[in-house]
Protein backbone atom coordinates (compact mmCIF):
# COMPACT_ATOMS: atom_id res chain seq x y z
CA UNK A 1 0.00 0.00 0.00
CA UNK A 2 1.60 3.25 -1.09
CA UNK A 3 1.88 6.13 1.37
CA UNK A 4 -0.03 8.42 -1.00
CA UNK A 5 -2.95 6.00 -1.03
CA UNK A 6 -2.80 5.65 2.72
CA UNK A 7 -2.70 9.41 3.18
CA UNK A 8 -5.73 9.90 0.97
CA UNK A 9 -7.60 7.22 2.83
CA UNK A 10 -6.72 8.78 6.19
CA UNK A 11 -7.70 12.28 5.01
CA UNK A 12 -11.00 10.93 3.77
CA UNK A 13 -11.69 9.06 6.98
CA UNK A 14 -10.84 12.14 9.01
CA UNK A 15 -13.11 14.40 6.92
CA UNK A 16 -15.99 11.93 7.15
CA UNK A 17 -15.51 11.74 10.90
CA UNK A 18 -15.63 15.53 11.14
CA UNK A 19 -18.80 15.69 9.08
CA UNK A 20 -20.48 13.13 11.34
CA UNK A 21 -19.29 15.13 14.35
CA UNK A 22 -20.68 18.37 12.87
CA UNK A 23 -24.07 16.71 12.41
CA UNK A 24 -23.97 15.38 15.95
CA UNK A 25 -23.15 18.87 17.25
CA UNK A 26 -26.14 20.31 15.36
CA UNK A 27 -28.48 17.58 16.59
CA UNK A 28 -27.00 17.83 20.07
CA UNK A 29 -27.85 21.50 20.39
CA UNK A 30 -31.36 20.84 19.06
CA UNK A 31 -31.83 18.12 21.67
CA UNK A 32 -30.36 20.31 24.42
CA UNK A 33 -32.61 23.28 23.64
CA UNK A 34 -35.76 21.17 23.26
CA UNK A 35 -34.97 19.13 26.35
CA UNK A 36 -34.52 22.19 28.56
CA UNK A 37 -37.67 23.83 27.18
CA UNK A 38 -39.65 20.64 27.84
CA UNK A 39 -38.17 20.00 31.27
CA UNK A 40 -38.45 23.54 32.62
CA UNK A 41 -41.72 24.20 30.82
CA UNK A 42 -43.58 21.09 31.95
CA UNK A 43 -42.50 21.52 35.57
CA UNK A 44 -43.98 25.03 35.52
CA UNK A 45 -47.13 23.99 33.72
CA UNK A 46 -50.45 24.17 35.56
CA UNK A 47 -54.03 25.12 34.98
CA UNK A 48 -53.62 28.53 36.60
CA UNK A 49 -51.47 29.47 33.63
CA UNK A 50 -54.52 29.64 31.40
CA UNK A 51 -57.02 31.01 33.90
CA UNK A 52 -55.17 33.87 35.61
CA UNK A 53 -53.90 37.11 34.12
CA UNK A 54 -50.37 38.47 34.37
CA UNK A 55 -51.41 41.35 36.64
CA UNK A 56 -50.88 39.02 39.62
CA UNK A 57 -47.22 38.62 38.73
CA UNK A 58 -45.64 35.54 40.25
CA UNK A 59 -49.00 34.35 41.62
CA UNK A 60 -50.70 34.85 38.27
CA UNK A 61 -50.80 33.05 34.98
CA UNK A 62 -50.49 33.97 31.35
CA UNK A 63 -54.10 33.87 30.17
CA UNK A 64 -54.19 37.45 28.85
CA UNK A 65 -50.93 36.82 26.97
CA UNK A 66 -52.27 33.60 25.43
CA UNK A 67 -55.44 35.37 24.29
CA UNK A 68 -53.46 38.39 23.12
CA UNK A 69 -51.07 36.22 21.13
CA UNK A 70 -53.97 34.43 19.44
CA UNK A 71 -55.64 37.72 18.51
CA UNK A 72 -52.46 39.39 17.25
CA UNK A 73 -51.43 36.30 15.28
CA UNK A 74 -54.89 36.04 13.74
CA UNK A 75 -54.84 39.71 12.74
CA UNK A 76 -51.39 39.21 11.25
CA UNK A 77 -52.28 36.09 9.30
CA UNK A 78 -55.67 37.56 8.36
CA UNK A 79 -54.02 40.56 6.73
CA UNK A 80 -51.09 38.73 5.21
CA UNK A 81 -53.00 35.78 3.69
CA UNK A 82 -55.23 37.56 1.13
CA UNK A 83 -52.53 40.08 0.16
CA UNK A 84 -49.84 37.41 0.03
CA UNK A 85 -51.90 34.97 -2.02
CA UNK A 86 -52.91 37.67 -4.51
CA UNK A 87 -49.36 39.03 -4.75
CA UNK A 88 -48.03 35.51 -5.28
CA UNK A 89 -50.70 35.04 -7.96
CA UNK A 90 -49.50 38.14 -9.76
CA UNK A 91 -45.90 36.93 -9.65
CA UNK A 92 -46.74 33.46 -10.94
CA UNK A 93 -49.56 34.14 -13.39
CA UNK A 94 -49.18 37.69 -14.65
CA UNK A 95 -45.62 38.79 -14.18
CA UNK A 96 -43.64 35.62 -14.76
CA UNK A 97 -40.51 36.60 -16.67
CA UNK A 98 -41.32 40.32 -16.69
CA UNK A 99 -38.78 42.73 -15.26
CA UNK A 100 -41.02 44.12 -12.51
CA UNK A 101 -42.11 40.61 -11.58
CA UNK A 102 -38.54 39.37 -11.30
CA UNK A 103 -37.61 42.41 -9.20
CA UNK A 104 -40.47 41.96 -6.78
CA UNK A 105 -39.82 38.23 -6.50
CA UNK A 106 -36.17 38.99 -5.76
CA UNK A 107 -36.97 41.68 -3.18
CA UNK A 108 -39.55 39.41 -1.58
CA UNK A 109 -36.84 36.81 -1.04
CA UNK A 110 -34.77 39.48 0.68
CA UNK A 111 -37.72 40.49 2.87
CA UNK A 112 -37.93 36.85 4.01
CA UNK A 113 -34.86 37.40 6.16
CA UNK A 114 -35.13 41.13 6.83
CA UNK A 115 -34.63 42.08 10.49
CA UNK A 116 -38.00 41.84 12.21
CA UNK A 117 -37.21 44.61 14.68
CA UNK A 118 -37.00 47.11 11.81
CA UNK A 119 -40.47 46.02 10.70
CA UNK A 120 -41.63 46.76 14.25
CA UNK A 121 -40.21 50.28 14.05
CA UNK A 122 -41.79 50.73 10.61
CA UNK A 123 -45.25 49.91 11.97
CA UNK A 124 -44.54 52.07 15.00
CA UNK A 125 -43.96 54.97 12.62
CA UNK A 126 -46.92 54.41 10.32
CA UNK A 127 -49.57 53.25 12.82
CA UNK A 128 -48.65 53.89 16.46
CA UNK A 129 -47.41 57.47 16.03
CA UNK A 130 -50.29 58.66 13.79
CA UNK A 131 -52.95 57.03 15.97
CA UNK A 132 -51.42 58.65 19.04
CA UNK A 133 -51.53 62.03 17.32
CA UNK A 134 -55.06 61.58 15.95
CA UNK A 135 -56.65 60.39 19.18
CA UNK A 136 -54.63 62.71 21.44
CA UNK A 137 -52.95 59.76 23.10
CA UNK A 138 -56.10 57.74 23.79
CA UNK A 139 -54.94 55.06 21.38
CA UNK A 140 -51.24 54.55 21.00
CA UNK A 141 -49.87 51.04 21.06
CA UNK A 142 -52.42 48.45 20.00
CA UNK A 143 -52.91 44.80 19.26
CA UNK A 144 -53.86 45.84 15.75
CA UNK A 145 -50.48 47.53 15.22
CA UNK A 146 -48.82 44.35 16.48
CA UNK A 147 -50.89 42.35 14.01
CA UNK A 148 -49.80 44.59 11.14
CA UNK A 149 -46.14 44.21 12.14
CA UNK A 150 -46.55 40.42 12.16
CA UNK A 151 -48.39 40.60 8.82
CA UNK A 152 -45.35 42.28 7.28
CA UNK A 153 -43.25 39.34 8.47
CA UNK A 154 -45.73 36.70 7.32
CA UNK A 155 -46.32 38.35 3.93
CA UNK A 156 -43.09 37.32 2.15
CA UNK A 157 -43.49 33.71 3.34
CA UNK A 158 -47.00 33.48 1.89
CA UNK A 159 -46.05 35.32 -1.34
CA UNK A 160 -43.19 32.95 -1.94
CA UNK A 161 -45.07 29.70 -1.31
CA UNK A 162 -48.06 30.84 -3.37
CA UNK A 163 -45.78 31.86 -6.23
CA UNK A 164 -43.91 28.54 -6.11
CA UNK A 165 -47.01 26.40 -5.76
CA UNK A 166 -48.84 28.13 -8.63
CA UNK A 167 -45.88 27.67 -10.91
CA UNK A 168 -46.05 23.94 -10.18
CA UNK A 169 -49.60 23.74 -11.55
CA UNK A 170 -49.36 22.18 -15.03
CA UNK A 171 -49.97 24.68 -17.84
CA UNK A 172 -52.30 22.22 -19.56
CA UNK A 173 -54.83 23.09 -16.86
CA UNK A 174 -54.63 26.77 -17.84
CA UNK A 175 -54.85 26.04 -21.53
CA UNK A 176 -57.80 23.70 -21.09
CA UNK A 177 -59.75 26.27 -19.09
CA UNK A 178 -58.88 29.20 -21.36
CA UNK A 179 -59.88 27.23 -24.45
CA UNK A 180 -63.31 26.73 -22.90
CA UNK A 181 -63.65 30.50 -22.68
CA UNK A 182 -63.17 30.85 -18.92
CA UNK A 183 -62.04 34.39 -18.07
CA UNK A 184 -58.60 34.58 -16.59
CA UNK A 185 -59.66 35.79 -13.14
CA UNK A 186 -62.07 32.89 -12.83
CA UNK A 187 -59.40 30.49 -14.02
CA UNK A 188 -57.01 31.85 -11.41
CA UNK A 189 -59.38 31.94 -8.47
CA UNK A 190 -61.45 28.85 -9.12
CA UNK A 191 -58.99 26.51 -10.78
CA UNK A 192 -55.36 27.43 -10.22
CA UNK A 193 -55.53 28.58 -6.60
CA UNK A 194 -57.73 25.59 -5.86
CA UNK A 195 -55.24 23.24 -7.51
CA UNK A 196 -52.43 24.73 -5.46
CA UNK A 197 -54.58 24.95 -2.34
CA UNK A 198 -52.74 22.56 -0.07
CA UNK A 199 -49.40 24.13 -0.93
CA UNK A 200 -50.74 27.58 -0.17
CA UNK A 201 -52.20 26.39 3.13
CA UNK A 202 -48.78 24.99 3.98
CA UNK A 203 -47.29 28.42 3.35
CA UNK A 204 -49.88 30.08 5.56
CA UNK A 205 -49.21 27.59 8.37
CA UNK A 206 -45.46 28.14 8.04
CA UNK A 207 -46.01 31.89 8.17
CA UNK A 208 -48.16 31.46 11.28
CA UNK A 209 -45.41 29.36 12.88
CA UNK A 210 -42.93 32.05 12.01
CA UNK A 211 -44.88 34.95 13.49
CA UNK A 212 -46.17 33.19 16.60
CA UNK A 213 -42.68 33.24 18.07
CA UNK A 214 -41.80 36.77 16.98
CA UNK A 215 -41.03 39.10 19.85
CA UNK A 216 -39.03 42.08 18.62
CA UNK A 217 -41.69 43.66 16.37
CA UNK A 218 -44.32 43.44 19.14
CA UNK A 219 -42.36 45.40 21.73
CA UNK A 220 -43.13 48.76 20.14
CA UNK A 221 -46.46 47.95 18.54
CA UNK A 222 -48.68 45.79 20.79
CA UNK A 223 -46.52 46.84 23.74
CA UNK A 224 -48.08 44.61 26.41
CA UNK A 225 -50.89 44.75 28.92
CA UNK A 226 -51.24 43.12 32.31
CA UNK A 227 -54.98 42.81 31.96
CA UNK A 228 -57.21 40.77 29.73
CA UNK A 229 -58.40 42.59 26.64
CA UNK A 230 -59.89 41.51 23.37
CA UNK A 231 -60.13 45.00 21.94
CA UNK A 232 -57.56 45.18 19.16
CA UNK A 233 -57.27 48.95 19.59
CA UNK A 234 -56.01 48.45 23.13
CA UNK A 235 -52.48 47.69 24.27
CA UNK A 236 -52.23 43.94 24.21
CA UNK A 237 -50.04 41.33 25.87
CA UNK A 238 -48.52 38.49 23.88
CA UNK A 239 -46.73 35.33 24.96
CA UNK A 240 -43.31 36.18 23.46
CA UNK A 241 -43.38 39.67 24.97
CA UNK A 242 -44.31 38.29 28.42
CA UNK A 243 -41.56 35.68 28.12
CA UNK A 244 -39.09 38.44 27.35
CA UNK A 245 -40.31 40.54 30.26
CA UNK A 246 -40.38 37.69 32.78
CA UNK A 247 -37.03 36.22 31.75
CA UNK A 248 -35.42 39.59 32.46
CA UNK A 249 -37.06 39.70 35.87
CA UNK A 250 -34.86 38.68 38.81
CA UNK A 251 -37.50 36.45 40.46
CA UNK A 252 -37.33 32.66 40.06
CA UNK A 253 -41.13 32.31 39.96
CA UNK A 254 -41.17 34.71 37.03
CA UNK A 255 -38.57 32.58 35.29
CA UNK A 256 -40.74 29.51 35.80
CA UNK A 257 -43.66 31.35 34.21
CA UNK A 258 -41.42 32.42 31.34
CA UNK A 259 -40.41 28.79 30.77
CA UNK A 260 -44.04 27.73 30.81
CA UNK A 261 -44.77 30.36 28.17
CA UNK A 262 -41.75 29.26 26.16
CA UNK A 263 -43.02 25.69 26.32
CA UNK A 264 -46.46 26.70 25.03
CA UNK A 265 -44.98 28.76 22.17
CA UNK A 266 -42.53 26.02 21.18
CA UNK A 267 -45.22 23.34 21.16
CA UNK A 268 -47.49 25.55 19.06
CA UNK A 269 -44.72 26.25 16.55
CA UNK A 270 -43.63 22.61 16.34
CA UNK A 271 -47.20 21.39 15.88
CA UNK A 272 -47.74 23.94 13.11
CA UNK A 273 -44.61 22.95 11.24
CA UNK A 274 -45.51 19.28 11.69
CA UNK A 275 -49.00 19.95 10.30
CA UNK A 276 -47.63 21.84 7.31
CA UNK A 277 -45.18 19.03 6.64
CA UNK A 278 -47.97 16.45 6.74
CA UNK A 279 -50.12 18.46 4.33
CA UNK A 280 -47.23 18.90 1.95
CA UNK A 281 -46.20 15.24 2.00
CA UNK A 282 -49.80 14.19 1.35
CA UNK A 283 -49.97 16.50 -1.66
CA UNK A 284 -46.76 15.16 -3.09
CA UNK A 285 -48.17 11.66 -3.04
CA UNK A 286 -51.38 12.71 -4.76
CA UNK A 287 -49.47 14.59 -7.45
CA UNK A 288 -47.32 11.59 -8.42
Amino acid sequence: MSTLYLRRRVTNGFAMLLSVLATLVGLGFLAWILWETLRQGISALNLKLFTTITAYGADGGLSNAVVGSLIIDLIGIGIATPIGVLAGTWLAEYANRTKLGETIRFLNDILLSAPSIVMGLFVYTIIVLPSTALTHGNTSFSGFAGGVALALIALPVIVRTTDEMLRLVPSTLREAALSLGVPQWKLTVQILIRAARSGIITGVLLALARISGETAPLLFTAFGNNFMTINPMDKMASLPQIIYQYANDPGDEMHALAWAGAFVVTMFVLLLSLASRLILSRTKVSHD
Partner: protein
Amino acid sequence: MSSQPGAVLAPLAEERKSRRDARHDRQFRWLVKFCALLVLASLLGAAAATLWGGRSAFSTFGWHFLVSTEWDPGNDVYGALVPIYGTIATSFIALLIAVPISFGVALYLSEVAPPWLRTPVASAIELLAGIPSIIYGMWGLFIFAPFFSAHIKPWLTNMLGNQPDDGKISWVAQHVPFVGKMFASSYPFGASILTAGIVLAIMIIPFIASVMREVFQTVPTRLKESAYALGSTTWEVSWDIVLPYTRSAVIGGIFLGLGRALGETMAVTFVLGNAMQLSASLLDPGASIASTIANQFGEAAGLQKSTLMALAFLLFVVTFIVLLIARLMLSRLAKREGS
Protein backbone atom coordinates in the same frame (compact mmCIF):
# COMPACT_ATOMS: atom_id res chain seq x y z
CA MET B 1 -78.71 36.52 -20.87
CA SER B 2 -81.01 33.60 -21.67
CA SER B 3 -84.03 35.82 -21.13
CA GLN B 4 -83.11 37.72 -24.30
CA PRO B 5 -85.51 36.44 -26.96
CA GLY B 6 -84.64 35.78 -30.57
CA ALA B 7 -81.51 34.59 -32.31
CA VAL B 8 -80.57 38.07 -33.48
CA LEU B 9 -79.93 39.30 -29.98
CA ALA B 10 -77.78 36.34 -28.94
CA PRO B 11 -74.53 37.67 -30.43
CA LEU B 12 -75.16 40.96 -28.65
CA ALA B 13 -75.52 39.18 -25.33
CA GLU B 14 -72.40 37.21 -26.08
CA GLU B 15 -70.54 40.40 -26.72
CA ARG B 16 -71.79 42.00 -23.54
CA LYS B 17 -70.71 38.95 -21.58
CA SER B 18 -67.26 38.95 -23.05
CA ARG B 19 -66.95 42.68 -22.44
CA ARG B 20 -67.90 42.11 -18.80
CA ASP B 21 -65.38 39.32 -18.52
CA ALA B 22 -62.70 41.56 -19.94
CA ARG B 23 -63.57 44.26 -17.42
CA HIS B 24 -63.40 41.79 -14.54
CA ASP B 25 -60.13 40.49 -15.87
CA ARG B 26 -58.72 43.99 -15.92
CA GLN B 27 -59.92 44.69 -12.39
CA PHE B 28 -58.52 41.43 -11.12
CA ARG B 29 -55.19 42.12 -12.81
CA TRP B 30 -55.04 45.52 -11.08
CA LEU B 31 -55.94 43.97 -7.74
CA VAL B 32 -53.21 41.33 -7.82
CA LYS B 33 -50.68 43.83 -9.12
CA PHE B 34 -51.57 46.22 -6.31
CA CYS B 35 -50.98 43.45 -3.76
CA ALA B 36 -47.61 42.64 -5.29
CA LEU B 37 -46.66 46.31 -5.16
CA LEU B 38 -47.48 46.27 -1.44
CA VAL B 39 -44.53 43.89 -1.02
CA LEU B 40 -42.33 46.50 -2.64
CA ALA B 41 -43.95 49.20 -0.52
CA SER B 42 -43.21 47.41 2.74
CA LEU B 43 -39.53 47.23 1.85
CA LEU B 44 -39.27 50.85 0.76
CA GLY B 45 -41.52 51.96 3.60
CA ALA B 46 -39.37 50.32 6.26
CA ALA B 47 -36.28 52.03 4.88
CA ALA B 48 -38.02 55.39 4.53
CA ALA B 49 -39.67 55.28 7.97
CA THR B 50 -36.42 54.53 9.80
CA LEU B 51 -34.49 57.10 7.76
CA TRP B 52 -37.19 59.69 8.51
CA GLY B 53 -37.23 58.77 12.19
CA GLY B 54 -33.45 58.97 12.35
CA ARG B 55 -33.08 62.24 10.49
CA SER B 56 -32.42 64.38 13.56
CA ALA B 57 -29.75 61.96 14.81
CA PHE B 58 -28.07 61.95 11.39
CA SER B 59 -28.18 65.74 11.13
CA THR B 60 -27.02 66.28 14.72
CA PHE B 61 -24.07 63.90 14.71
CA GLY B 62 -23.17 63.71 11.02
CA TRP B 63 -20.55 61.22 9.92
CA HIS B 64 -19.03 61.33 13.39
CA PHE B 65 -22.04 59.21 14.46
CA LEU B 66 -20.51 56.14 12.84
CA VAL B 67 -17.17 56.29 14.66
CA SER B 68 -18.11 57.68 18.05
CA THR B 69 -18.20 55.30 21.03
CA GLU B 70 -20.00 57.77 23.25
CA TRP B 71 -23.43 56.75 24.55
CA ASP B 72 -24.59 59.27 27.11
CA PRO B 73 -28.37 59.68 27.50
CA GLY B 74 -27.73 62.21 30.28
CA ASN B 75 -26.08 64.68 27.91
CA ASP B 76 -27.95 63.43 24.85
CA VAL B 77 -24.81 62.44 22.97
CA TYR B 78 -24.85 59.21 21.02
CA GLY B 79 -22.38 57.34 18.85
CA ALA B 80 -23.05 54.16 16.90
CA LEU B 81 -19.68 52.46 17.03
CA VAL B 82 -20.35 50.25 20.08
CA PRO B 83 -23.53 48.64 18.69
CA ILE B 84 -22.04 48.46 15.19
CA TYR B 85 -18.96 46.71 16.54
CA GLY B 86 -21.11 44.37 18.63
CA THR B 87 -23.28 43.48 15.64
CA ILE B 88 -20.30 42.78 13.39
CA ALA B 89 -18.28 40.92 16.04
CA THR B 90 -21.13 38.61 17.09
CA SER B 91 -22.10 37.88 13.48
CA PHE B 92 -18.50 37.23 12.49
CA ILE B 93 -17.99 34.80 15.38
CA ALA B 94 -21.27 33.14 14.45
CA LEU B 95 -20.09 32.64 10.86
CA LEU B 96 -16.70 31.37 11.99
CA ILE B 97 -18.41 28.64 13.99
CA ALA B 98 -21.45 28.00 11.82
CA VAL B 99 -19.83 27.73 8.37
CA PRO B 100 -17.60 24.69 9.02
CA ILE B 101 -20.32 22.93 11.02
CA SER B 102 -22.93 23.63 8.34
CA PHE B 103 -20.57 22.36 5.68
CA GLY B 104 -20.07 19.19 7.70
CA VAL B 105 -23.81 18.74 8.16
CA ALA B 106 -24.51 19.34 4.45
CA LEU B 107 -21.72 16.96 3.47
CA TYR B 108 -23.06 14.31 5.81
CA LEU B 109 -26.60 14.70 4.52
CA SER B 110 -25.69 14.69 0.83
CA GLU B 111 -22.72 12.32 0.59
CA VAL B 112 -22.03 10.38 3.76
CA ALA B 113 -25.23 9.36 5.51
CA PRO B 114 -27.04 6.19 4.48
CA PRO B 115 -30.10 7.17 2.40
CA TRP B 116 -32.66 6.04 4.98
CA LEU B 117 -31.12 8.36 7.57
CA ARG B 118 -31.00 11.48 5.40
CA THR B 119 -34.62 12.64 5.56
CA PRO B 120 -35.05 12.28 9.33
CA VAL B 121 -31.75 14.01 10.11
CA ALA B 122 -32.47 16.80 7.61
CA SER B 123 -35.94 17.30 9.13
CA ALA B 124 -34.43 17.47 12.61
CA ILE B 125 -31.92 20.10 11.52
CA GLU B 126 -34.72 22.07 9.87
CA LEU B 127 -36.66 21.84 13.10
CA LEU B 128 -33.81 23.79 14.66
CA ALA B 129 -34.55 26.58 12.16
CA GLY B 130 -38.20 26.66 13.21
CA ILE B 131 -37.59 27.25 16.92
CA PRO B 132 -38.48 30.88 17.73
CA SER B 133 -35.52 33.08 18.50
CA ILE B 134 -36.85 33.96 21.94
CA ILE B 135 -36.48 30.30 22.91
CA TYR B 136 -32.82 30.45 21.86
CA GLY B 137 -32.59 33.58 23.97
CA MET B 138 -34.02 31.93 27.07
CA TRP B 139 -31.93 28.84 26.63
CA GLY B 140 -28.91 31.08 26.18
CA LEU B 141 -29.68 33.18 29.23
CA PHE B 142 -30.63 30.45 31.70
CA ILE B 143 -28.77 27.40 30.46
CA PHE B 144 -25.93 28.22 28.12
CA ALA B 145 -24.53 31.42 29.66
CA PRO B 146 -24.13 29.84 33.14
CA PHE B 147 -22.62 26.74 31.53
CA PHE B 148 -20.28 28.94 29.48
CA SER B 149 -19.26 30.95 32.50
CA ALA B 150 -18.65 27.83 34.60
CA HIS B 151 -16.85 25.60 32.12
CA ILE B 152 -15.72 27.33 28.94
CA LYS B 153 -14.82 30.83 30.05
CA PRO B 154 -12.30 29.88 32.80
CA TRP B 155 -10.60 27.55 30.37
CA LEU B 156 -10.40 30.27 27.70
CA THR B 157 -9.10 32.95 30.07
CA ASN B 158 -6.44 30.58 31.41
CA MET B 159 -5.36 29.07 28.12
CA LEU B 160 -5.58 32.11 25.85
CA GLY B 161 -6.02 35.24 27.94
CA ASN B 162 -3.34 37.51 29.37
CA GLN B 163 -4.99 37.72 32.79
CA PRO B 164 -5.18 34.05 33.88
CA ASP B 165 -6.25 33.16 37.41
CA ASP B 166 -2.94 31.51 38.28
CA GLY B 167 -0.81 34.31 36.80
CA LYS B 168 0.94 32.01 34.32
CA ILE B 169 0.37 33.56 30.92
CA SER B 170 0.23 30.90 28.23
CA TRP B 171 2.56 30.73 25.24
CA VAL B 172 -0.28 31.60 22.86
CA ALA B 173 -1.27 34.71 24.80
CA GLN B 174 2.34 35.88 24.83
CA HIS B 175 3.23 35.23 21.22
CA VAL B 176 0.11 35.58 19.08
CA PRO B 177 -0.89 39.24 18.78
CA PHE B 178 -4.32 40.32 20.13
CA VAL B 179 -5.23 36.87 21.46
CA GLY B 180 -4.25 37.69 25.03
CA LYS B 181 -6.50 40.74 25.10
CA MET B 182 -9.35 39.01 23.28
CA PHE B 183 -9.69 36.38 25.98
CA ALA B 184 -8.97 38.45 29.07
CA SER B 185 -11.94 39.32 31.23
CA SER B 186 -12.66 40.37 34.76
CA TYR B 187 -16.40 40.28 34.12
CA PRO B 188 -17.84 37.49 36.26
CA PHE B 189 -20.93 36.51 34.24
CA GLY B 190 -21.57 34.39 31.19
CA ALA B 191 -23.05 37.10 28.98
CA SER B 192 -20.51 38.22 26.40
CA ILE B 193 -19.86 38.87 22.75
CA LEU B 194 -18.53 35.33 22.37
CA THR B 195 -21.60 33.79 24.05
CA ALA B 196 -23.88 35.76 21.73
CA GLY B 197 -21.76 34.66 18.76
CA ILE B 198 -22.12 31.00 19.76
CA VAL B 199 -25.91 31.24 20.24
CA LEU B 200 -26.19 33.01 16.88
CA ALA B 201 -24.09 30.27 15.29
CA ILE B 202 -26.52 27.61 16.52
CA MET B 203 -29.38 29.66 15.10
CA ILE B 204 -27.92 30.06 11.62
CA ILE B 205 -26.47 26.56 11.20
CA PRO B 206 -29.78 25.14 9.91
CA PHE B 207 -30.16 27.98 7.37
CA ILE B 208 -26.67 27.64 5.94
CA ALA B 209 -26.73 23.84 6.10
CA SER B 210 -30.03 23.52 4.27
CA VAL B 211 -28.92 25.87 1.48
CA MET B 212 -25.63 23.98 1.13
CA ARG B 213 -27.39 20.64 1.12
CA GLU B 214 -29.82 21.81 -1.54
CA VAL B 215 -27.09 23.12 -3.82
CA PHE B 216 -24.89 20.07 -3.29
CA GLN B 217 -27.74 18.00 -4.64
CA THR B 218 -27.77 20.01 -7.87
CA VAL B 219 -24.31 18.75 -8.83
CA PRO B 220 -24.77 16.45 -11.83
CA THR B 221 -24.35 12.83 -10.83
CA ARG B 222 -22.19 12.13 -13.88
CA LEU B 223 -19.58 14.63 -12.63
CA LYS B 224 -19.37 12.95 -9.25
CA GLU B 225 -19.44 9.46 -10.69
CA SER B 226 -16.66 10.30 -13.14
CA ALA B 227 -14.51 11.37 -10.22
CA TYR B 228 -15.41 8.27 -8.23
CA ALA B 229 -14.59 6.15 -11.28
CA LEU B 230 -11.11 7.68 -11.35
CA GLY B 231 -10.65 6.48 -7.79
CA SER B 232 -11.44 9.63 -5.83
CA THR B 233 -12.44 9.36 -2.22
CA THR B 234 -15.70 10.86 -0.96
CA TRP B 235 -13.77 13.76 0.54
CA GLU B 236 -11.95 14.46 -2.72
CA VAL B 237 -15.21 14.44 -4.65
CA SER B 238 -16.76 16.82 -2.13
CA TRP B 239 -13.82 19.20 -1.96
CA ASP B 240 -12.66 19.13 -5.60
CA ILE B 241 -15.89 18.53 -7.52
CA VAL B 242 -18.96 19.43 -5.45
CA LEU B 243 -17.61 22.53 -3.73
CA PRO B 244 -16.09 24.25 -6.81
CA TYR B 245 -19.25 23.51 -8.82
CA THR B 246 -21.48 25.08 -6.20
CA ARG B 247 -19.07 27.75 -4.96
CA SER B 248 -21.19 30.83 -5.67
CA ALA B 249 -24.32 29.30 -4.14
CA VAL B 250 -22.37 28.17 -1.07
CA ILE B 251 -21.16 31.74 -0.58
CA GLY B 252 -24.77 32.86 -1.11
CA GLY B 253 -25.89 30.50 1.64
CA ILE B 254 -23.22 31.86 3.97
CA PHE B 255 -24.33 35.44 3.29
CA LEU B 256 -27.91 34.39 3.93
CA GLY B 257 -26.82 33.18 7.35
CA LEU B 258 -24.90 36.41 7.87
CA GLY B 259 -28.01 38.44 7.02
CA ARG B 260 -29.96 36.48 9.62
CA ALA B 261 -27.26 36.92 12.23
CA LEU B 262 -26.95 40.68 11.71
CA GLY B 263 -30.64 41.34 12.24
CA GLU B 264 -31.31 38.83 15.00
CA THR B 265 -32.68 40.53 18.09
CA MET B 266 -34.02 38.31 20.81
CA ALA B 267 -31.40 35.57 20.97
CA VAL B 268 -28.67 38.19 21.13
CA THR B 269 -30.33 40.58 23.58
CA PHE B 270 -30.48 37.89 26.26
CA VAL B 271 -26.84 36.84 26.15
CA LEU B 272 -24.93 39.93 25.09
CA GLY B 273 -25.03 41.71 28.43
CA ASN B 274 -26.14 45.04 26.97
CA ALA B 275 -23.18 47.16 28.00
CA MET B 276 -22.60 50.29 25.93
CA GLN B 277 -18.85 49.92 26.06
CA LEU B 278 -16.16 49.01 23.61
CA SER B 279 -13.92 46.23 24.86
CA ALA B 280 -11.16 44.33 23.14
CA SER B 281 -12.15 41.20 24.99
CA LEU B 282 -14.65 38.80 23.45
CA LEU B 283 -15.53 37.66 26.96
CA ASP B 284 -16.83 41.08 27.98
CA PRO B 285 -20.45 42.11 27.51
CA GLY B 286 -21.36 44.37 24.61
CA ALA B 287 -24.34 45.57 22.64
CA SER B 288 -25.61 45.04 19.11
CA ILE B 289 -27.78 47.35 17.04
CA ALA B 290 -30.84 45.17 17.44
CA SER B 291 -30.32 44.58 21.17
CA THR B 292 -29.82 48.31 21.79
CA ILE B 293 -33.09 49.10 20.04
CA ALA B 294 -34.97 46.35 21.89
CA ASN B 295 -33.62 47.51 25.25
CA GLN B 296 -33.88 51.26 24.95
CA PHE B 297 -36.60 52.17 22.47
CA GLY B 298 -39.40 51.73 25.01
CA GLU B 299 -38.05 54.40 27.34
CA ALA B 300 -36.36 56.60 24.75
CA ALA B 301 -37.58 60.00 23.67
CA GLY B 302 -36.34 62.85 21.52
CA LEU B 303 -32.84 62.51 20.18
CA GLN B 304 -32.30 59.07 21.73
CA LYS B 305 -35.34 57.71 19.92
CA SER B 306 -34.11 59.27 16.71
CA THR B 307 -30.68 57.69 17.26
CA LEU B 308 -32.27 54.27 17.65
CA MET B 309 -34.22 54.82 14.43
CA ALA B 310 -31.00 55.82 12.71
CA LEU B 311 -29.38 52.61 13.98
CA ALA B 312 -32.34 50.63 12.63
CA PHE B 313 -31.89 52.31 9.25
CA LEU B 314 -28.19 51.38 9.19
CA LEU B 315 -29.05 47.80 10.15
CA PHE B 316 -31.72 47.59 7.48
CA VAL B 317 -29.40 48.90 4.76
CA VAL B 318 -26.53 46.61 5.74
CA THR B 319 -28.69 43.48 5.96
CA PHE B 320 -30.32 44.45 2.67
CA ILE B 321 -26.93 44.61 0.96
CA VAL B 322 -25.79 41.33 2.53
CA LEU B 323 -29.01 39.55 1.55
CA LEU B 324 -28.84 41.09 -1.94
CA ILE B 325 -25.39 39.58 -2.42
CA ALA B 326 -26.68 36.29 -1.04
CA ARG B 327 -29.58 36.12 -3.47
CA LEU B 328 -27.43 37.14 -6.44
CA MET B 329 -24.89 34.43 -5.63
CA LEU B 330 -27.66 31.87 -5.21
CA SER B 331 -29.40 32.80 -8.44
CA ARG B 332 -26.15 32.41 -10.36
CA LEU B 333 -26.18 28.65 -9.77
CA ALA B 334 -29.88 28.46 -10.51
CA LYS B 335 -29.26 30.14 -13.87
CA ARG B 336 -26.56 27.64 -14.77
CA GLU B 337 -28.98 24.89 -13.85
CA GLY B 338 -31.41 26.46 -16.30
CA SER B 339 -34.20 26.43 -13.76
